């Protein structure tokens, strides 16, 4: 679905490569979280997928990016946007109209979606992100968190095969952030939408994503199933990346030889780990399978 072959990019006027020798393959239906310190190249990676690079940002471009089999360098932005929906970091930079429902309708009209269908999609996408009540509101008077939800609704209304999101929950409170991830999970499971999300909230990435990519200095330095990446607890901390606290706990329990099974990704799984230890039922020689629960 998405393939990077030896991709490097330096922004115009900068000598430094923002991303370096990226080789990457993402299949249909994956839910990928991308994390890393600021300046690691996360936004650049996302911009290479939705065509913002090379179509808006110029610079030195090496290698090739294939999205749905087509080289993004040879497609227009319009063509790419039929496959890839985008939610950018700053919602204000993305909004083009003054009323919420117009904002959702804008992309649909551009895609020549029939009028009756537009109505249906507006209702549906506003509902999915929990902002039906904002439908007729002016966009200027919305809070940062509300604006972020509007841009997410506008993107999913187009039902893209791939959705890329760059820190879409930065202005949302913890419950609002969780709600966004639950929406994404539903889109991923029900529509098979492929999702890539750049996010600092590692706790949510761990709980919801199937795959985690860690970037540093323009490169992908860890990439794999969430549990496998979280095994590199010390490395993550060294990179300045927060670890879910249940992972830190598990690391301590392992160090104390109380546990040597799979890493729990959320509180439910951590509870299982602790119960097993307390019940004394945990046998160090047969790591139990967390997926059985």
């Amino acid at each position, binding site marked *: 679905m998405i393939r990077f072959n030896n991709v490097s990019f330096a922004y115009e006027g900068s000598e430094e490569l923002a991303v370096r020798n990226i080789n990457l393959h993402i299949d249909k239906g994956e839910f990928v979280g991308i994390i890393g310190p*600021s300046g690691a190249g996360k936004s650049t990676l996302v911009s290479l997928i939705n065509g913002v690079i090379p179509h808006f940002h110029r610079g030195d471009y090496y290698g090739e990016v294939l999205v749905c089999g087509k080289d993004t360098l040879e497609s227009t932005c319009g063509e790419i946007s039929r496959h890839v929906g985008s939610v950018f970091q700053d919602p204000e930079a993305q909004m083009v109209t003054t009323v919420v429902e117009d904002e959702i309708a804008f992309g649909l009209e551009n895609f020549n979606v029939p009028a009756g269908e537009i109505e249906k999609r507006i209702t549906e996408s506003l509902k999915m992100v929990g902002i039906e009540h904002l439908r007729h509101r002016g966009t200027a008077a919305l809070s940062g968190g509300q604006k972020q939800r509007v841009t997410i609704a506008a993107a999913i209304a187009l039902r893209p095969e791939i959705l890329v999101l760059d820190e879409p929950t930065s202005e949302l409170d*913890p419950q609002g952030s969780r709600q966004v991830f639950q929406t994404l999970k539903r889109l991923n499971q029900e529509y098979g939408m492929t999702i890539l999300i750049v996010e600092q909230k590692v706790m949510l990435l761990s709980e919801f994503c199937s795959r985690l990519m860690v970037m540093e200095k323009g490169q992908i330095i860890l990439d794999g199933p969430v549990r496998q990446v979280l095994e590199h607890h010390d490395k993550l901390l060294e990179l300045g990346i927060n670890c879910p606290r*249940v992972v830190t*706990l598990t690391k*301590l329990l392992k160090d104390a030889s109380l546990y040597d099974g799979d890493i729990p990704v959320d509180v439910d799984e951590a509870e299982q780990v602790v119960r097993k230890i307390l019940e*004394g039922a945990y046998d160090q020689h047969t790591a139990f399978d967390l997926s059985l629960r």
Partner: protein
Amino acid sequence: MISIQHLTYRYDKKAPLILDHINLEINKGECVALIGQNGSGKTTLLKQLNGLLKPTSGRVTINGLDTATTKTSALARHIGYLFQNPDHQIFCNTVYDEIRFGLLNIQCPPEEIHDRIKRIAGLLGLENKLTRDPFTLSRGERQRVALASVLVLETDILVLDEPTTGQDYRECVEIMEIVKDLNRMGKTIIMVSHDIEVVADYCERTIILHQGRVLEDDATHVVLRKSESLMLSGLEPPQIIQLALRFGPLFQHVRSPEDMAEAVAACAVPGGVRV
């Protein structure tokens, strides 16, 4: 040091109460987290402290000065204020001038100005950015410029509205370590945060504001166990507290992964459980 008595506030006569009979005492040297949902009145309350807003009724005093009758410029010598969005605060053409602006306003002796700017820039990792235009910096860097322009004034009280937004984890920890150092030096800190882990790690006291009222006000480790109050505020307890709460009273003293690991180790005996 900060005393709030029966404070109510509404933006105009017909508007609903934003702050509804708030009573709070904050002592010198405390580090207090103020949490609550968007619209709960957090920012409005902070603006009462430095006199940007005046009480509709009730009284706010800062180091004995009544905010209703004291000029905002006089209060600014006691209280430094970091706005939520750095772009609402930054307006000079260089980082240097931005940090200098407040110093000029408080009539800092000219011979001190340069040293103070250098020192604070060093503390916040901005020493190489002093000649840059703030608006060419990243969001995280702009946040630190805004913070520098507040810290350089060396006020007793620091009011910080979401000081770690837009920062990655490492930057977040760096900022909070600076804030904590200032607190250890005796500064009083009041900060709004949505990041419950930051609150758990750095603040001793936590106040939850809900619909303009104080819903909880207690030691942080006590407040962070109040799942229902947190839920009302769009928050959830930190992961480790959530985990501890599932075991009833067994882990009631647990505050961190380290505590939890220790407590689990103490309970676990081969083949059984120590009760």
